[in-house]
């Protein structure tokens, strides 16, 4: 790792200030950033840890909306969201491994927006709202391609608000080495219709599978998907699976997710 200064503010305001420094970089749980730093693929001058900010951690339910602090570890979500939003809790409980889940945070995952990460599927699939230190961003506006988001430099995800859907499920087919999603599909039935969000498959990152949503909005059952062609688009092709295979998996997993929801 290159050398850097390490600061650990206690409040969001302090963190925002610290991140205004030149080449400052926010650190969530570090489960992706630290390996990147080890490879010397990033060279921040200051690392601003968000782990000491109490106001950014926790899970709360209010009027059908589940709010998760941006600094909340996956393990906490898995435990504390179980009653209110089991599909989300199960997704959080399936990220990485137990030790990764102790440290990794929802805000860190969403800020990084790895094209194979699980959380983006839940956020987009739920139609959640990303709350930052300065504004609120709808999920549909937030994800802007592989590792790209609507966040401005220095902007911190302080919370994510999930409207709890009537039904939901996340179906993940793990890449066997990284345990990220080779393909992951999050389906939700909401008052406004069905949402289907796909991670792992596309070079553009998480996306909504519009045809499936349309089919499911007519009837939320696996059978409703039977006639659909697998999604097209810029599917990832790598040593773990061809583009064609990934597209096929999207369809299979969507069906399974709907059946399990």
């Amino acid at each position, binding site marked *: 790792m290159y050398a850097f200064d390490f600061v650990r503010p206690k409040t969001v305001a302090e963190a925002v200030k610290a991140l205004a420094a030149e080449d400052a970089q926010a650190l969530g749980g*570090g489960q992706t950033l*630290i*390996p990147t730093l080890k490879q010397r693929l990033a060279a921040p001058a200051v690392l601003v840890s968000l782990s000491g900010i109490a106001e950014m951690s926790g899970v709360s339910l209010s009027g059908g909306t589940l709010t998760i602090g941006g600094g909340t570890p996956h393990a906490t979500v898995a435990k504390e969201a179980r009653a209110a939003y089991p599909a989300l809790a199960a997704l959080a409980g399936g990220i990485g*491994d*137990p*030790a*990764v889940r102790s440290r990794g945070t929802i805000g860190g995952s969403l800020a990084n927006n790895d094209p194979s990460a699980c959380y983006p599927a839940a956020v987009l699939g739920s139609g959640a709202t990303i709350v930052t230190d300065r504004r609120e961003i709808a999920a549909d506006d937030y994800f802007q391609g592989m590792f790209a988001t609507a966040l401005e430099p220095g902007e911190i995800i302080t919370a994510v608000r999930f409207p709890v859907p009537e039904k939901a499920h996340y179906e993940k087919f793990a890449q066997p080495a990284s*345990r990220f999603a080779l393909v992951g599909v999050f389906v939700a039935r909401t008052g406004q219709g069905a949402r289907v969000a796909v991670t792992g498959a596309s070079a553009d990152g998480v996306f909504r599978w519009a045809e499936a949503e349309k089919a499911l909005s007519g009837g939320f059952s696996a059978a409703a998907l039977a006639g659909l062609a697998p999604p097209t688009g810029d599917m990832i092709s790598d040593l773990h699976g061809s583009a064609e295979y990934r597209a096929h998996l999207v369809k299979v997993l969507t069906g399974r997710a709907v059946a399990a929801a």
Partner: protein
Amino acid sequence: MPKVAMRVNGRAVSGEVEGRTLLVQFLREGLGMTGTHVGCDTSQCGACVVHVNGVPVKSCTAFALDLDGAEITTIEGMANADGSLGRVQQAFQDHHGLQCGFCTPGMVMSAAALLAENPTPSEAEIRTYLEGNICRCTGYHNIVKAVLAASGQDPATIAAE
């Protein structure tokens, strides 16, 4: 250089570290506690797992300064007060749950974390929980047996299907 202070295996420790100093480096190089191992650089293998405030953490993927004030337990802290092997450690010896010993510290710490969370896990739960710990020697069979035994269950129940 910044200073960090934490409790490791019940003992108050402190030291000067850099911003980039990882917890595992602080333990191994700063404190001379070499029981915690580094087996990879991508947070996959789990040889470095320790407990931080009671939960498992990959000590190669956490900065020492981020854990200022934390309560750390390492493999060196798992023995009984009289120095004999603790319950999970003893089960690993009893059931030949280790060979080369390199993944073992992390494996024991993960197993202990599981049992703290779930005192009588099923075989499937054990296998799933250990997905962040790679062992190249044992094929996991005897590790699973050891964890079953440590939980007071009959390790003979491990079987195909």
